[in-house]
């Protein structure tokens, strides 16, 4: 597998939005992976696949600057990753807001717009217009004024997308954003993310245990398993021989009706492929 950018036209090799060199992650003494080189170009959609405990979320946290890799460097926009980077949008693992949470839909989005600002909480006209525009961009105007806790998981997740886009990010980091959504909302939310990167060239790193909802959108897959990893297009990675080598045990990949099913993944690593 290659970590070089795939062909995108001769002149179209803009500097990467995200660049990892020699990345290694350890949990206590166990090495999860090492030697990870990855460049993410503007507008590229990268899915990070792997079972529980393969360091997917830790990798994302390193990109956010919330933790360091045990080895190697993470550059965002050419600078070392740091917390609070203005041009990173972040969609966390879905946590349904409890009923009674003192926020309406639009307030969650407003936190993305001005939540880090000090001083008296007086929102400017510009802030309000920005929130309205973000709400419109994810089609959430209809429930923007309802309490967050009364909204469905899918509605809340649309608002999360709007919140993450508040600062016009060049890099969008998504941690299992489709978890516990029904198929219809999975499609709606992933299409919002896909539209964003197509229209604005925002790079997307999408951590997921199930690639199927985004299979048609993904440019490359970073597949973490068994202390190893592999990077490439879905067609290059999601193959029986490649995953057999990665897992070190016979694994079979079936494709049908535009879906991928992987069979034979070791017990401890059971994840997306089991879902048919």
């Amino acid at each position, binding site marked *: 597998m290659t970590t070089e950018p795939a062909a995108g036209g001769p002149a179209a090799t803009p500097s990467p939005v995200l660049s990892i060199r020699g990345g290694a992650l350890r949990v206590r003494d166990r090495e999860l992976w090492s030697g990870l080189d990855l460049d993410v170009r503007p507008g590229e959609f990268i899915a990070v696949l792997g079972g529980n405990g393969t360091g997917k979320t830790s990798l994302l946290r390193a990109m*956010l600057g*919330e933790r360091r890799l045990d080895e190697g460097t993470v550059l965002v926009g050419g600078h070392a990753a740091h*917390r*609070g*980077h203005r041009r*990173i949008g*972040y969609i*966390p693992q879905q*946590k349904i807001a409890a009923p*009674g*949470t*003192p*926020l*309406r839909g639009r*307030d*969650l989005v407003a*936190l*993305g717009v*001005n*939540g*880090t*600002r*000090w*001083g*008296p*909480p007086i929102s400017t006209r510009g802030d309000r217009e920005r929130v309205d525009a973000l709400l419109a961009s994810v089609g959430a105007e209809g429930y923007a004024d309802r*309490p*967050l*806790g*009364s909204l469905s998981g899918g509605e809340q997740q649309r608002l999360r997308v709007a*919140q*993450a886009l508040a600062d016009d990010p060049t890099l969008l980091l998504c941690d299992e954003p489709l978890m516990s959504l029904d198929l219809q909302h999975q499609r709606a939310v992933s299409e919002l993310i896909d539209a964003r990167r197509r229209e604005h060239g925002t790079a997307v790193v999408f951590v997921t245990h199930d690639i199927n909802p985004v299979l048609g959108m993904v440019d490359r897959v970073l597949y973490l398993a068994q202390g190893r990893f592999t990077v490439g297009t879905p067609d290059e990675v999601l193959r029986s021989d490649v995953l057999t080598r990665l897992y070190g045990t016979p694994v079979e990949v079936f494709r049908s009706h535009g879906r991928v099913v992987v069979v034979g993944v070791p017990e401890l690593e059971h994840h997306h492929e089991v879902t048919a």
Partner: protein
Amino acid sequence: MITVDPGTYVQLLALVQNSIIAAAVLGVVGGLIGVFVMQRDMAFAVHGISELSFAGAAAALLLGLNVVGGSIIGSLIAAALIGVLGAKARDRNSIIGVLMPFGLGLGILFLALYPGRSGNKFGLLTGQIISVDLPQLGLLIGISIVVLVALLIVWRPLTFDSLDAEVASARGVPSRALSILFMTLLGLTVAVSVQVIGALLVMALLVTPAAAALRVSSSPVMVPVLSMVFGLVSAVGGILLAIGGSLPISPYITTISFAIYVVCRIIGSRARVAR
């Protein structure tokens, strides 16, 4: 319960002017910080801090020091312990559960050793607002203004951290520093409240108004505004009702505060059914 004629009532009113001002300020600040107490799920912490604040005040009384100062020291120690040892909600509740009886016990010990008037003794537990003198009033107002200004400055990052911690942290909100600051502000507010309404009843001004406001609104503007109004009405209303009669002030304050909560709950559940 008004058992005096109107003329006497006005004279009494003039006498308790200080207390009314103290109660009004406290109602507003308590209502405001209460919003964050609810957001951060710290109602129990308020109770825990107030018991140590009581112990501090009792110690100061025994040693002949400034009671408000003792109360503040007790509060801040409790707030720091809870903040440092109880970062996680589960740890926090057990820490508070351990601290609370210890603080209350210490306070009772100090009061038992105190040779002075017994009226002062129970004042700390159940309220003594009538006895607010001018220097005390200045201290109360000064502390309240500090808390108010600090809350206004950190309002949005604190809200972000309280309600959406993960994203707030990724966006660079300094959650650790905010948490320490908030515990300090909470400690100060509790210390002031103990002077007015008593350690046992602090929650009536720091928790109930915000909880009531949350039953009827989710708006980040309406919730603090309503909470402040509820706090103000409870505290000042309690005094105005109490000075005409012979009963202490605290039960009036707690009853008004509770009644507002009940009404808000009913309105809130009606609204929910209607939706």
